[in-house]
């Protein structure tokens, strides 16, 4: 374990020089996108939405220019990672995608520390992370409207299908049928009444939300109501937290320019993985023993 510590510490020291590039880089993301046909969506939402799609050719150039600030003077021990990123971007990998992929383990680590240090468990590791990305793709309001629609309709269909004597998989298919019809209705209503912009919505966020609502439904069956609501609340909280982190221009710029930062996650996760003390919530749960002192 000590080895990892030393390694990370060395890496951090190597790149600890303040860099102006990050700030410039952040400006890139803040530049307004080409005007979209719907006027209702806010400017911020538009920039956020762009993050999940590959950037335009001219933007890519700016990214490369900025990356070149670090990737100069030949590859060496200090800057081989920026070189790797430049290589990937030049080869055609979208910079946005690289940033998001690099940020995934960060989100996972946040989910992990919520569970093992604080004691708030969401649904698994993947669901909160997937929710963050989904919200990033749809925007926060449309994302929650869709999630609520999917959740309510799947609960409703489950309630009806409970009385019908058929096997499990056909039941789930019927449930998906109800949800699909409902989602189409919601999307149509949104387009008609201008609740949110549906023009750029792809099927993949909806698919992710479907999986999420399926997991929530399973939770309702397995746990009591209080536990289920807490788990859902934590999942949504983690999803929103992840969304906020992913949509911060400064964070994205920093990770793209200093990809080494992800190595910090190794010692952090090893430390959390060997923490056998009490979680924050357990200090409350075991208040009687702690207060009276154990014998």
């Amino acid at each position, binding site marked *: 374990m000590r080895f990892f510590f030393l390694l990370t510490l060395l890496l951090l020291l190597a790149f600890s020089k303040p860099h102006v590039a990050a700030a410039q880089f952040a400006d890139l993301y803040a530049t307004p996108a080409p005007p979209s046909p719907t006027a209702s969506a806010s400017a911020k939402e538009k920039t956020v939405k762009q993050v999940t799609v590959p950037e335009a050719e001219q933007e890519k150039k700016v990214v490369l220019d900025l990356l070149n600030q670090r990737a100069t003077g030949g590859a060496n021990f200090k800057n081989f990672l920026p070189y790797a990123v430049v290589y990937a971007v030049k080869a055609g990998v979208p910079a946005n995608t690289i940033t998001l992929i690099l940020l995934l383990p960060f989100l996972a680590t946040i989910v992990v520390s919520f569970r*093992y240090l604080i*004691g708030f468990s969401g649904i698994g590791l993947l669901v909160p992370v997937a929710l963050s990305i989904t919200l990033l793709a749809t925007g926060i309001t449309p994302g929650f409207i869709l999630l609520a629609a999917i959740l309510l309709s799947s609960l409703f269909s489950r309630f009806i299908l409970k009385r019908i*004597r058929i*096997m*499990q998989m056909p039941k789930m298919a019927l449930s998906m049928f109800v949800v699909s019809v409902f989602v189409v209705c919601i999307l149509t209503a949104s387009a008609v009444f201008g609740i949110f912009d549906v023009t750029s919505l792809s099927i993949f966020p909806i698919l992710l939300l479907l999986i999420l609502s399926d997991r929530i439904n*399973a939770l309702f*069956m*397995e*746990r*009591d109501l209080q536990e289920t609501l807490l788990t859902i609340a934590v999942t949504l909280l983690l999803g929103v937290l992840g969304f906020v982190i992913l949509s911060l221009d400064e964070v994205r710029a920093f990770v793209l320019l200093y990809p080494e930062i992800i190595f910090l996650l190794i010692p952090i996760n090893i430390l959390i993985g060997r*923490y*056998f*003390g*009490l*979680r924050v919530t*357990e200090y409350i*749960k*075991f*208040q*009687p*023993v*702690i207060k*009276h*002192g*154990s*014998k």
Partner: protein
Amino acid sequence: MAVSKTVLGMNARNFLYIRPNNKPSAKRRADDKLATKKMLLAHDLPTPSLLATFYTGQDVRKFDWTQLPKDGFAVKPARGYGGGGILVFKNWEGLTGTTVNGETYTSKQLSSNIFDLLDGAFSLQYLPDKAFIERLIAPHSFFKKIAPVGLTDIRVIVFHNIPVMAMMRIPTQQSEGKANLQQGAIATGIDMRTGITSRALFHNNFIKRLPDAKIKASGIKIPDWDKLLLLAARTQEASGLGFAGVDLVVDAQKGPMVLEINSRPGLKIQNANLASLRTRLERVEGMDVPTPERGVEVAKSLFAESFSEKVKIVPKILPVIYPVTIKYKDRIITITAKLDTGAYRTSIDTELAKTLGIPFSEDKIYVKSASGRAYRSTVQLTFELTGKKITTVSSVVDRSYMKYQMIVGRVDLKGFLIDPDLEQEEGEDLSDIEEREE
């Protein structure tokens, strides 16, 4: 040996105790109530007997519902979660019956219910499940007294043959008869040496009295404690789990029984005992105790509450002549009796039995005594000897010419020593917690 004083949390429980000690195969069996039951029966461990098992729809269709016991039974899914899907019947009249909640079920409704269980309506992730019917537990009178509704159970955490910590879970009106702490059942800590409750916890607050039974929550002596501890340790050994929570109940006829086994026991037990499981587990780690019997000995000497030192485990020493209190219906009479280890049975005077109004039973017994051999009438007799309630069959004989109207025979003197040198004490000794049963 340095041991950690911190409370055992989820992180430590899962990584330090469950993962290295509980094999996946043993965990899978513990999660399946039907597989657990079969394992218990194979190891000759007492558990409510199995009346029927349902693996397929065919089993349900072919089942003869009239063979179910009239005085009730319990229908359970093998892999239910948190007590879901369990139906408890208090009576069954061939083809219809009533549950403890007062609902009426016909055999048709019941079989449709079992179909739901097989479909996995209550199992995790809707996986297909098995179902079974087991005999109903009639709680020991002691547990009926402390919990008017529902079934009180005792959870013992056992670690490699050594019982480490125990609690009693008492259902309340609020918990709707369920021994589930989250739903409002009471948890009491238990002293491992004596089986006496130390304190009671209701929704994380300590309470002095049990709300339903209106009796003091601490100082209750659980009957058959040694047997319960040994059964818990033997169950853990048989289960293949190294770290297990064993749930026990005491049946009126059959005594201590295993209800279920948990491979991931809850940690709230630490609050009820005001003790850290981690400290206790570290203390016995790597002890390599060969048998459950030895494990119980270790537990009783290591995990005793400080008050248990005041409790006398030695048999009570009594003089030959001692007062006993006979109770029959609302009549109570205290007489001086002779504690006679030379006599096998207890016998009382005919006149005395008549004054109390105890009916003579049909059966006569054959008695050999100093006055010869004879058939004598008998009565069902309940009396108290220094606070211990004894129920026995006593012979009835004319003792009017004798000094004492009653002889207490050796079958009823278990747990006492008789010392002829001792003089009769004044009054009753009330300080003795050990003998108190309330």
